């Protein structure tokens, strides 16, 4: 009988094993928790971080230290020193990141702002990619590996293919997007096929990418001919992103691409069918599956697009930032900063854009701060880290500022009584029904 032969072959498994589903849903819950906060929380986290930074600036400042030696004799000296240290440092940060008031004219005064845009370009691109992965409920922390893979692909095309200007630029850029997409796509594929935990796989692929690129830099694949340094030859002129605002500013058309990527991601998530499904599996994969959405296939699609966006950062690094040939440090830690950027931007495209600009400003202004005020640039790192700390602990920020917990009704322990936690609508409904 055909029925029996058929029944011998069970339906092919479409689900990853259950225990992993449990685990990753824990993760997803946590990520959702972080993302669920309002923009206010993001702003407050930045404020707290700046305050912590100010304290550090004050206590490490030599002037403050000198004045505090006779604090009880003349406390005003100490306070003045603290004020001048903090205000000097943050003023320098501002001048280095936004507008240089000491400049001769407006066009040179605005240069710091364009530097901020330059420094934020890769951060935003990578942040968008990470944000997309968060939105589908995957914790992609493989930004480093994806940037390296993208940089290797874009770079290789950029210094080997002899093609005229706009064509080579586009080819190299596409190669970069492809490299990032494949590197992240592997993760999505493994997740979908085997239920592998994406956190572990992305971390491991960071190492694989790093050592693979390091190796390729020592053999004539990526290594500059005739050189013994683990470094590539410079990009061909046709592959280099041209300056956006003329030769006086560093900012390139790469920034335009990033603006385009932000618009694209906004459209994808808020207006497209695919993005709708991404958000569905990110918020509740079980309901999405029950509604006929192929969760596993979407994990692959999502990671491919996420990787391509991170790949844009990789391409920008080699085609826009370091065009004279790169080494295995080309990612400059952007892969990890991008996680912070995505969290600070609440994984919303324009939020990520703003957070990327902020971090770009920290980076651009940090050096000015060090040069002008002798404040160690590490303070900026501390500020960034404190932001992460507070973003990862929304309840802490709420506690500090006495904010109400969202949906502050404590959840009753049992499912049956769940309606009791949100019965406002129910009351209305019942009264209505009673009529």
């Amino acid at each position: 009988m055909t029925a029996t032969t058929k029944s011998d072959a069970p339906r092919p498994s479409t689900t990853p094993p259950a225990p992993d589903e449990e685990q990753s849903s824990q993760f997803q819950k946590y990520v959702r928790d972080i993302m669920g906060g309002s923009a206010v929380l993001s702003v407050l986290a930045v404020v707290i971080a700046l305050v912590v930074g100010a304290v550090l600036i004050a206590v490490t400042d030599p002037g403050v230290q000198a004045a505090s030696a006779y604090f009880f004799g003349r406390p005003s000296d100490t306070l003045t020193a603290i004020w001048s240290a903090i205000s000097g440092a943050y003023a320098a940060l501002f001048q280095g990141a936004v507008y240089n008031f000491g400049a001769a004219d407006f066009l040179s005064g605005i240069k710091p702002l364009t530097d901020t845009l330059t420094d934020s370009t890769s951060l935003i691109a990578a942040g968008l990619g990470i944000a997309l992965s968060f939105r589908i409920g995957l914790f992609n922390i493989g930004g480093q590996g994806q940037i390296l893979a993208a940089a290797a692909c874009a770079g290789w095309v950029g210094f080997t293919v002899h093609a005229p200007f706009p064509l080579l630029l586009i080819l190299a850029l596409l190669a970069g997007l492809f490299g990032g997409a494949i590197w992240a796509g592997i993760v999505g594929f493994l997740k979908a096929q085997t239920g592998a935990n994406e956190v572990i796989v992305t971390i491991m692929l960071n190492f694989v990418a790093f050592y693979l690129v390091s190796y390729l830099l020592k053999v004539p694949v990526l290594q500059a001919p005739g050189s013994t340094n683990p470094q590539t030859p410079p990009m061909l002129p046709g592959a280099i992103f041209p300056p956006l605002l003329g030769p006086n500013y560093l900012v390139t058309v790469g920034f335009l691409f990033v603006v385009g990527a932000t618009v694209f991601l906004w459209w994808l998530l808020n207006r497209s069918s695919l993005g709708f499904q991404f958000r569905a599996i990110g918020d509740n994969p079980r309901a999405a599956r029950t509604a006929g959405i192929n969760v596993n296939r979407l994990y692959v699609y999502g990671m491919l697009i996420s990787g391509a966006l991170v790949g844009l950062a990789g391409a920008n690094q080699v085609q826009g930032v370091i065009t004279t040939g790169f080494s295995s440090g080309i990612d400059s830690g952007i892969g990890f900063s991008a996680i912070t950027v995505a969290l600070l931007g609440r994984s919303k495209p324009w939020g990520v854009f703003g957070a990327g600009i902020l971090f770009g400003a920290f980076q651009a202004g940090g050096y000015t701060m060090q040069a002008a005020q002798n404040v160690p640039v590490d303070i900026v790192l501390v500020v960034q880290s404190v932001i992460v700390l507070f973003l990862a602990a929304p309840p802490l920020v709420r506690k500090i500022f006495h904010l109400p917990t969202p949906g502050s009704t404590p959840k009753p322990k049992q499912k049956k009584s769940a309606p009791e936690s949100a019965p406002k609508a129910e009351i209305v409904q019942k009264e209505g029904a009673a009529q």
Partner: protein
Amino acid sequence: MKLELRGITKRFGSLVANDHIDLVVNPGEIHALLGENGAGKSTLMNVLYGLYQAEDGEILLDDEVQHFAGPGDAMNAGIGMVHQHFMLIPVFSVAENVMLGHEQTRFGGTLDLAAARRQVREISARFGFHVDPDALVGDLPVGVQQRVEIIKALSRDARVLVFDEPTAVLTPQETDELMVIMRQLKAAGTSIVFITHKLREVREVADRITVIRLGRVVGEASPTATNTELASLMVGRAVELTVTKDAATPGAPALVVDKLSVIDVDGQIVVNNVSFDVKAGEILAIAGVQGNGQTELAEAILGLQAKVTGEIVLDGVSLRDKSVRGVLNAGVGYIPEDRQQDGLIAEFTIAENLMLDRADGAPFVARGSLRLAYLADFAAAKLREFDIRAQGIATHVGRLSGGNQQKVVLARELSRTLRLFVAAQPTRGLDVGSIEFVHTRIVETRDAGVPVIVVSTELDEVVALADRIAVMYRGGIVGIVPADTDRDILGLMMAGDTPDSIAKQKGAAA
């Protein structure tokens, strides 16, 4: 022990869950706390048990004011709680579970398991519980596990016992046994608070009934009150408990399930060789105690189960090897058992949830883009048609009440052209008004000529809706019987007896 609650008020934000509730439970009395889900019963009991702190009011035991900072204080004061979801550790033995939390130790900190065993035997003998102290809790039937919970509470000298929806997980027979136990406890002088929304049980066992609605005490009733009187107190209006429906006009068999088996992720056979058919324009109810394979059977039809053998044929087309998408496209509508986990995305708006199972094509998607204007019109229309009480279509579904959430699911599923409708626990946790609405819609779907499967653990619902009833037990179908089958027989079938064997027993008895 006399328990008195005076003016208990508990707020969650702007919501008043308990509004100056007064309650007196006399020694040796079974006091039923009756109310719909969401009326505030569980909140009140959590206040009593020290899990929540009341904003206002006081708790008195034998006329002494108590202050409970946590369940520990409440237990020490003599209050015991039998939770709806048992707070037992399955891999521990009965004695170990009973001693958990107030372990007696001997010299050197070794556990005095023997004392716990003695205690279990002693209490068990006193009330005729027949519980073996060395049995692993995980191996015991649900009804016996509940007795372990009772023993646990009694071992701590509880003189006020709170039963929170104790019959939700029991078969009718086990429910009857529980009633006997409650009467025994009462005879021994224990005061009992019995929380439920099932009218029949209340009238059977309670001495006094307090009805709670929307966080307030709306009245007291005696057990002699009729079902209709009690129900109208609960919901504030007269309701019909039975579903008005015409006789079914079944057509040809539309869904044919043949020798269907399902193996779960742990390798257990959860549905075992099940065969049945559902005719067009007929409601087949699948009854049974929770966890006897009904859930998995429904999921298997929808393509949500990975390992399925046998055959599922709808209108001549096999569904067995189709993806969930394919099954939905074949015209199957589905109300999942757990609407919050499987049916809805809480963070999505009502409109977004309404398009959830048609997210990749017409009518909501054109050339890859969402048709937001169309969706808005559609959602607004469904809001009216299904009487979904919300501020608007952009309200997040997580903010809706259970009844309105279920209406969203119902609206979504019934908006497609259906060839089969599967509703799993369609009214679980809903208030009476919403139950009526859902039932009416299900019957309307049947009358439109669609074959309907209703999976339910509530016997009342099964009897009210079904044209035929299939009873499941341990993954198999015990029998398929007409809707007018005697409830006692259905109860026995839910405990695993086949209709034939029941008839034989009856014959032997007569």
